């Protein structure tokens, strides 16, 4: 792709580059006015975009169906508007109804999801699929199963971790530490990817890399 010559695109890419540098001034130097300007600009533009998108969603998914004769949507629209009564100390109690519906639906879905996929499917995958296609897979599955059991023992607080529970509880702690290490490692890779993307863009804009 050739280096852009369109003035609008040029202003865009240079603004992005400069704002990125302002952002990084926080970690590379110290908090400054430049960082704060960038931070506020980011928050403001994000909120603006979110607002516009949400208004569009309400028009598409609620107003248009009502205009087309689906009058059942009026109830949903009214429930949505009632949420804003949270800002009125006198009528705040009315806003609890739509929130109750949202929380109820969310809770129902969450319980179902947690049971079917987080618990049952994971237990099935962990315990009942121990024998793999080769010896290494079976060994890995065995480690996972032992890890799950030992970690559960570690979180058993109704019984002191002595006697037969001592070694599994200690092993459980080690499994947890290894997991935290993995989390840290994968998180670091993710963050480096973010940084790399910005560096890549900056280098392209200042001409050190082909655009």
């Amino acid at each position, binding site marked *: 792709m050739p280096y852009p010559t369109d003035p609008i695109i040029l202003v865009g890419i240079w603004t992005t580059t400069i704002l990125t540098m302002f952002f*990084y001034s926080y*970690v*590379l*130097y110290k908090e400054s006015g430049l960082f704060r300007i960038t931070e506020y600009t980011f928050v403001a533009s994000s909120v603006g*975009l*979110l607002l516009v*998108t*949400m208004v*569009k*969603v309400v028009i*598409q*998914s609620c107003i*248009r*169906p009502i205009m087309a004769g689906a009058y059942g949507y009026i109830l949903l629209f009214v429930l949505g508007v009632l949420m804003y009564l949270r800002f009125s100390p006198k009528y705040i109690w009315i806003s609890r109804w739509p929130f109750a519906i949202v929380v109820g*639906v*969310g809770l129902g*879905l*969450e319980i*179902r*999801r947690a049971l*079917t*996929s*987080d618990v049952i*499917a*994971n237990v*099935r*995958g*962990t315990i009942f*699929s121990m024998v793999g296609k080769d010896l290494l897979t079976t060994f890995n*599955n065995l480690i*996972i199963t032992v890890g799950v059991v030992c970690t559960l023992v570690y979180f058993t607080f109704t019984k002191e971790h002595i006697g037969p529970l001592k070694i599994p509880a200690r092993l459980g702690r080690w499994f947890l530490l290894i*997991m935290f290490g*993995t*989390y840290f490692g*994968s*998180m*670091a*890779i*993710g*963050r*480096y*990817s*973010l*940084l*790399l*993307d*910005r*560096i*890549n863009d900056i*280098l392209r804009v200042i001409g*050190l*890399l082909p655009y």
Partner: protein
Amino acid sequence: MAEKEKEAQDIWTRILNIDVRVFYWACLIILALPLIFPFTLPIVVTEPTRAAFNTIQSLPEGSLVLYYMECGVGGWPELMGSMVASLKHIYAKRLKFVIVNIGYSVDHKLTFDRIFSLAGHPSARGYKYGEDWAYFGFASGMETAMASLAKNFRSVYREDDFGTSIDQLPIMRNVNEAKDFKLVLCFNTAGGQSWVRAHWTVANKVPSIIAVIGAGLAQSQSDFKAGMNSGFWFSTRGAAEYEGLLKAPGISSARMSALDTMQLVTILCVIAANFAFQMSKRRKK
């Protein structure tokens, strides 16, 4: 006082007291150098990436895929590679696809402009809008919407992102529930992975492939082991592996040498810091 000065001179304590900003500057330089002076390191394809490739490869031509994106511009650095590579694979296999954005992807248009500029616009690949692909845009509702989509597509989207009624799109004829799709591709930075897993894969047995950011690796790995996804792309690394399988090096492959170098330096720093910590503790004793 003399002891304090001696401690201050201790090399291990000095290592531990290095200003963190030195590390940040080092990160910048170490990541930038391999980009300016590129070199290639071998990329080993992991099992989840290969499984993802095989799943898409096994689909017959014309199969319908749900391309579900739940990430904003902030997810580009980690997910753009897999979004582009998977779309290239879709084009190569002549699969039909439907794009939905549920969750946090309010800036979906920016993202798809970018994806299409890197992978090619569907129309340039011989895809006809409405027949071979459709773009439904953003819908609010998060998990509720994703669950509803699996049961009744039309309860979430009555029209596409351009205002065309869903019933006027030939691709959506006789398509209204999860079972009408052969595969779900989920590009997520937050909760989308668990929504697809529960409401599409576990409940409706629709295979899914997930692209995850760094924080989602452990969850995706356990889901993969438990058969709750048919493979996943882990951040830039997963995308680079996929580009290798497709024999189409892209943005991720070009960045892997920088990432690998940075990871190596991080490991060395972690070892050095731990060693310094243990040594300084021993000295204090």
